[in-house]
């Protein structure tokens, strides 16, 4: 029949096809990724031990950069702001859930509403930053116009060190909330209607239904929202760069912005020092990466 084959003279590739194929498919991706992502992480560790202006040869200074970091007030401001970012950015999760619940109805045109609510996530943070800069503008900004109606006086959100970080985070929460909202909307779609009916028979209503039955079922969505929000908080750069450029007097810096400033801005070009900041940032993120990979590992094993 048609399928007889003489396996004696099969090529070496043919015989090892199943073992070899995945690697052939992986090679381009792995190479690119190693070259541009994995190796640079390690390079950064190395560079953080150098005093190097980005030109020519750096000189090794051991842990000097870290020692300096230890005494650098700007570093602590950045670190503090990063923690504020982390904490407050997470508000996007309940906010997103709230909006998702609000929109999770079937009335005519709701799809359009959902899409429009999602807008902020799609536009560039550069534009979001600009928009909010004007929103906060102490002379004509909408915010101050608004609170002016109630007789409160202009708040210089982006120019005041006490408010600036919160102001930027609020701007960041806008798109991030939209993101969490869409995650929850899809999560809500996957909620088992029978469980809700069971809960209705059990007499759960309103907030208690939400708290005891809905939210536990949204756990996967919450997990993802948590991960993307943490990553977003730690990567925050665009908004700060656009809205305040780190100011006033460096009070709105976060680590990622500070390292950019140190390493690549007009006054900087201290690559080693920048890399040291990056390493600290990386170590913070590593906690979350480990947590995430661990959860994924458990899940993979579970299958």
């Amino acid at each position, binding site marked *: 029949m048609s399928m007889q084959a003489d396996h004696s003279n099969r090529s070496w590739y043919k015989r090892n096809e199943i073992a070899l194929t995945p690697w052939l498919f992986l090679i381009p991706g792995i190479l690119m990724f190693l070259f541009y992502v994995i190796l640079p992480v390690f390079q950064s560790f190395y560079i953080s031990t150098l005093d190097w202006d980005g030109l020519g040869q750096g000189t090794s200074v051991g842990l000097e950069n870290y020692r300096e970091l230890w005494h650098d007030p700007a570093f602590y401001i950045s670190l503090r702001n990063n923690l504020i970012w982390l904490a407050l950015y997470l508000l996007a999760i309940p906010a997103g859930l709230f909006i998702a619940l609000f929109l999770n109805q079937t009335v005519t045109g709701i799809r359009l509403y959902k899409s429009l609510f999602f807008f902020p996530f799609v536009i560039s943070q550069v534009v979001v930053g600009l928009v909010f800069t004007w929103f906060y503008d102490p002379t004509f900004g909408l915010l101050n116009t608004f609170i002016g109606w109630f007789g409160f006086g202009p708040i210089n959100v982006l120019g005041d060190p006490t408010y600036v970080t919160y102001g930027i985070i609020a701007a960041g929460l806008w798109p991030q909330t939209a993101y969490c909202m869409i995650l929850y909307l899809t999560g809500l779609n996957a909620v*088992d209607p*029978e*469980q809700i*009916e*069971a*809960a*209705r*028979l*059990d*007499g*759960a*209503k309103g907030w*208690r239904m939400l708290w*005891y*039955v809905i939210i*536990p*079922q949204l*756990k996967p969505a919450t997990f993802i929202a948590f991960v993307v929000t943490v990553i977003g908080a730690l990567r925050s750069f665009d908004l700060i760069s656009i809205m305040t450029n780190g100011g006033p007097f460096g009070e709105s810096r976060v680590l990622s912005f500070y390292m950019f400033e140190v390493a690549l801005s007009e006054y900087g070009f201290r690559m080693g020092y920048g890399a040291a900041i990056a390493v600290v940032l990386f170590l913070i993120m590593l906690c979350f990466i480990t947590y995430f990979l661990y959860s994924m590992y458990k899940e993979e094993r579970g299958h």
Partner: protein
Amino acid sequence: MSGVTLNKAIKKYGDVQVIHGIDLEIDHGEFCVFVGPSGCGKSTLLRMIAGLEDTTDGQIHIGDRDVTTMDPSQRGVAMVFQTYALYPHMTVKQNMGFGLKMNGHPKSVIEEKVAEASRILKLDEYLSRKPAALSGGQRQRVSIGRAIVRGPEVFLFDEPLSNLDAELRVEMRVEIARLHREIGATMIYVTHDQVEAMTLADKIVVLRAGVIEQVGAPMELYRDPDNKFVAGFIGSPAMNFISGQVQKTNVKIGATGDTLKHKLPSPYHGRVVTIGLRPEFITIDPTGDTFSVEISESLGGVSYVHLRADNGEKLIAEQRGDIRSNEGDRVGISFDRDTVMYFDTDSEKRIRI
């Protein structure tokens, strides 16, 4: 007194009417099973009783209370779902106690009732497990436990066993029967499994397209169906239907040419009717020559013999014991004249004689 009474109950989804004015009385303590083909409205009807669907028109009473517009949680009903609908993030104990907790019962009462239900269902060992760590049968047991704990007047089951494998299904079926005897509450049960319906029910309600076709005890429906639909639906393998020519005092069977000494009402004289013959009442006569054996499927104790008459009509006969028919054999059949039923070919109504 907590029977359930439906009075011209109607359900519309938008303009589509799916339940067409159902009148039904279910007595206190009765085990009532809804059967019918897929999409006939069994679940909808059950959910209307539970209050999970609004009733468009008509009334629903539980005991003497008109519950038509009441909240599900106030109707005194508990429901067991096909997919169990357990809360995956709660332990078995929490699942069972959730309803009481939501209704503000004190902890000690909850503990006690959960303990009792888990004793009845032999779930004590699993109380602190999450549903994911239970087998299908155990999960279904928990979901029944959740219903019991709330001490409802009426239990509602929507195909509770259809997600279980054959063996477990049998086991759970027996369990539910035992439960009914033990608790004595009114139970309404939706299924499309013949065996469940026949074995569990005090009363079977056969639905078709939102209308009740017949209500009655299982054997009543089996022996005395009102129409071809019910006759074909109850009993497995299904009743065979062949055509017969009505003559003055007898009916001539198309497939065999034999005549049956039955006097049908005169309007049928000269017309063609449908003859119903249950496979279990047919005996194969190896000496005959009216049918050829298409396939004979032997299951050990019983075989199903697929027969084809020369006029193309098909029959299935159940054969017991060691006599075997082989494919291609020519055989005849015999049956007791009294086991035959007649149906109007157009209206499918039973022609009683």
